[in-house]
Each structure stands twice: as structure tokens, then as C-alpha cells.
């Protein structure tokens, strides 16, 4: 009897039709996702999420969630997938499954104009570097420059920008596209500039940003990969891409 109950339970779970999908998003990472004054979510991640849902033919609910708790909340079934510029890394793969990448852009440092800080261990000695906590950028700076700089870790990228403007930090390390559009090209970021090389080392930065799902949801995984291929092929991706960026951020 109990075997039978268990069997029915398992079969209903695996046969789940994805007509409704709840998508975890961040909302503090312009231009990928941010909250407008009236409370609506906008950005590249948000548009991609909507396009993918339309492709799958599901109704989607967007659930904003702070970065710190974004994976635990997925595992706690508060939503079914995360579309929030999450880099595909080995550490995260231990907990969640990833779709194929939906974009890949390099990381880069920014400094205050006129500060003359050089990107090297000696040039950055004693400087304060701001990163978003537990991102690929955090892992990179901790491993590569952790012994020569002071690292300040923020819950959101927006808070890091706030302290950069206030003069509490000397350098920012973040995704180059996100930082360019979300900070450097804005009024408050006008006093800052890029410095140093593009960082793409897969050891730290993974293969790009993917959609994270629970490991058991194999069907959803398949649907997501197909949907990414489909919007790449049918021009939807390009339309969204061109709305925000003047280069193709999908990468190679």
C-alpha cells in the first residue's frame, strides 16, 4: 500500500506539466534587473524571463529575492528557477542545476578618475575593493588579491555603487556590462572609469550566466535549454539584446 502511494507521488511529480512557472529575480542589478519607481521590474533578465516563458507557453510570476538567499529560496520551493544573471560555477552546481548560458560578459575593475590606481598586487596594496557578496567577483578578488587589498562585501551591487560615490571604496569589481550601464554611464558614476583587463577565466567566472533550477526538475531543464535555443534562433534574443546593449552579450 505504502509503495503504491509512494509510486503515485513520484509519478505525479515527474509528470508535472509546466503551465505555471515562478521565476526568482533580483531587482537590484541594472541594467539586467531593477525595480522602477512604481514597483515594476525591468531589465534584460526580466525580458529574457518573459520571452522564455512565452516560448514555453507557461504563465510566469516574477518573485524578487535578495541575492544572499536566492539559492536557498529556490531549494525551499519559493520559486522554480532563477533568472538573475547567475554565473554557472562549480560551487553552485553542487546545489542546483543550470541551463546552458544565456549570456557571457567579462568582469572588470573600475576606479575613481584621477586616483591612478594600477591593477596589480603592488598597485592595489591597502586599497578597498567593493564587490557583491558571494558572486564570482567576490571569489576572484578573495583568491587572487585577498592578501593585498581590503574587501568590502555588499548585499547588492547598488549598495556598492552607493559607497563608491560616498568615497568609502577605492575600486569596484563587477560585470563590465552591468557596471557600465548601471553605474559608469549614469550621473552618479560619472567620476569613475574602467581600469585593467577583461577577466573571463572560467575557473572563477564560469561559462557565463545560466538559469538555475532544482536538480530534480529534469523536464524544466529540457524546456529551458530548448527555449534559450529557440529565442536565439527566432530573433527574440537579438531584439531584447539590442534594447539594452550595442554589442551581442551572448559571447562566443
Amino acid at each position, binding site marked *: 500500500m505504502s509503495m503504491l502511494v509512494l509510486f503515485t507521488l513520484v509519478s505525479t511529480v515527474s509528470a508535472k506539466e509546466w503551465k505555471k512557472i515562478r521565476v526568482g529575480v533580483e531587482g537590484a542589478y541594472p541594467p539586467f534587473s531593477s525595480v522602477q519607481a512604481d514597483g515594476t521590474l525591468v531589465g534584460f533578465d526580466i525580458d529574457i524571463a518573459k520571452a522564455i516563458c512565452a516560448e514555453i507557453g507557461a504563465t510566469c510570476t516574477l518573485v524578487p529575492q535578495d541575492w*544572499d538567499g536566492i539559492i*536557498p529560496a529556490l531549494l525551499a520551493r519559493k520559486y522554480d528557477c532563477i533568472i538573475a544573471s547567475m554565473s554557472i560555477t562549480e560551487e553552485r552546481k553542487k546545489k542546483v542545476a543550470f541551463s546552458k548560458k544565456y549570456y557571457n560578459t567579462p568582469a572588470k575593475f573600475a576606479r575613481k578618475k584621477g586616483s591612478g590606481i594600477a591593477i596589480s598586487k603592488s598597485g592595489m596594496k591597502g586599497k578597498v575593493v567593493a564587490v557583491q557578496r558571494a558572486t564570482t567577483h567576490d571569489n576572484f578578488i578573495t583568491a587572487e588579491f585577498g592578501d593585498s587589498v581590503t574587501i568590502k*562585501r555588499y548585499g547588492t551591487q547598488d549598495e556598492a555603487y552607493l559607497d563608491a560615490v560616498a*568615497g568609502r571604496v577605492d575600486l569596484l569589481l563587477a560585470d563590465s556590462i552591468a557596471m557600465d550601464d548601471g553605474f559608469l554611464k549614469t550621473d552618479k558614476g560619472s567620476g569613475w572609469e574602467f581600469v585593467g583587463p577583461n577577466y573571463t577565466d572560467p575557473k572563477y567566472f564560469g561559462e557565463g550566466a545560466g538559469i538555475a533550477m532544482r536538480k530534480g526538475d529534469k523536464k524544466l531543464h529540457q524546456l529551458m535549454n530548448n527555449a534559450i535555443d529557440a529565442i536565439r534562433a527566432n530573433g527574440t534574443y537579438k531584439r531584447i539584446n539590442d534594447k539594452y546593449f550595442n554589442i551581442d552579450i551572448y559571447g562566443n
Partner: protein
Amino acid sequence: MMDYEVIFSNIPLYFEGLWVTIQLVLMALVLGFFLALPIALLATSKNILLRVPPKSYIYFFRGTPLLVQMFMIYHGMGQFEAIRESVIWIVFKEAYWCALIAFALNTAGYTAEILRGTIEQTPFGEIEAARACGMSKTTLYRRIILPGTFRRALPAYGNEVIFMLHGSAVAGVITIVDLFGAAKIVNSRYFVPFESFITAGFFYLCVTFIIVGLFKKLEFRWYAHLHPRTI
């Protein structure tokens, strides 16, 4: 399901955080206490003009959340160019000092209110007796009112010390790696919210246990005259 491996390998981070928490709380309590004493004395004054400013201070700091006070000092001060360009920015630039200032001002408000209450509870007979002995006002405060005040304030102040310890967790929100900040780093790096926060909770519990023990000892000493005597 539980993954305590990452907790054990990150224990040094927790101890670093614990040390920051202890520094912040201890310094805030000392500064706050010395700020609270004059505020409490003024708040018990008979002169309304002297009474209003300290009472407003108490009202403000007890009436707003510690997190709001800390954000006003940390983010709020950073907003003004005049402050960013002045000498005092050396202090406000550092999250550590911003947190300390917020904690000290906050605990001063609560401590002043505790002391105000216990000053006003001084039995009139004691004051009368002191006056009959010809004590000056200063001597009266030094020998009679303040010792009794501190003794009566002890249990309530013990609570305030524990609240300050627990309240200090808000420091983890403004990039300070205190005990809570350490737990947040471990959580977000390894995605183990339960294990990382219960570990921080355990540390807070241990410190609270020590504080409770210390106050019990102090109470035992200061209330020695009330113990039943064996003949």
C-alpha cells in the same frame, strides 16, 4: 542534509566576527553609559528647560529602530558633500565607527531612561536622613542617590547589555564582518542558511550566558546587605 563541514572550516571567520562584535558592544556600552549619566541627571531636574532636551533625546533614541539610526549615520552622512569633504569624514567613512556611534547613542538613550527611573525611585527617607546629617548636594548624590540608583538599575541594565549584544547584529548589514556578518558570508558562499545562522546563534548564546553570569555575580555583591544572615 546538514553540512557542518563548511562551518568547521570557517570557524576562524566566526571567531574574527565574534571579536568585532565584542569590541563594538563593549565600547558602545562604556561610551553609552557615560553619556547616559548626565542625561539621566538632567532628565530628573525640576527645571523644565533643563529637562526637555534630555527627555527628547531619550524619546528619539528609544522611539526609532537601531537599524534606522545606523543607516542615517552610515548612508545618510555619506550623502552630503560638505561632510564628505570635511575632517569628520575620516570617522564617518568607516562603517566600523558609524556602527559604534549609532550603538553608543542608542544604548545611551535606553540606559538614561533606566537611570532616570531608578533615580526617581530613591526613597525619600534616605535623602531626608542625608540632609539631616548636613550633606551637601554633591555629597548627597555621590554617597546616597547614585549608589542606590546603580544598585536598583542593575537587573534592568543587565537586560540592556543583552539587547545591545543582540542589536549589534545590524552591523553585519553595513559591510562589517561581525558575528552576523561572518554568518552571512558563510551562508552566501556555501548556501547553508540553517547551519551558518545557527552557528552564529550559538556564539550569541554563549556570550549572553557569560553576561548573565557576570550580572548575577554583581547583583549578589551589591545586594549583600539584603541576604538572610546566618547567626
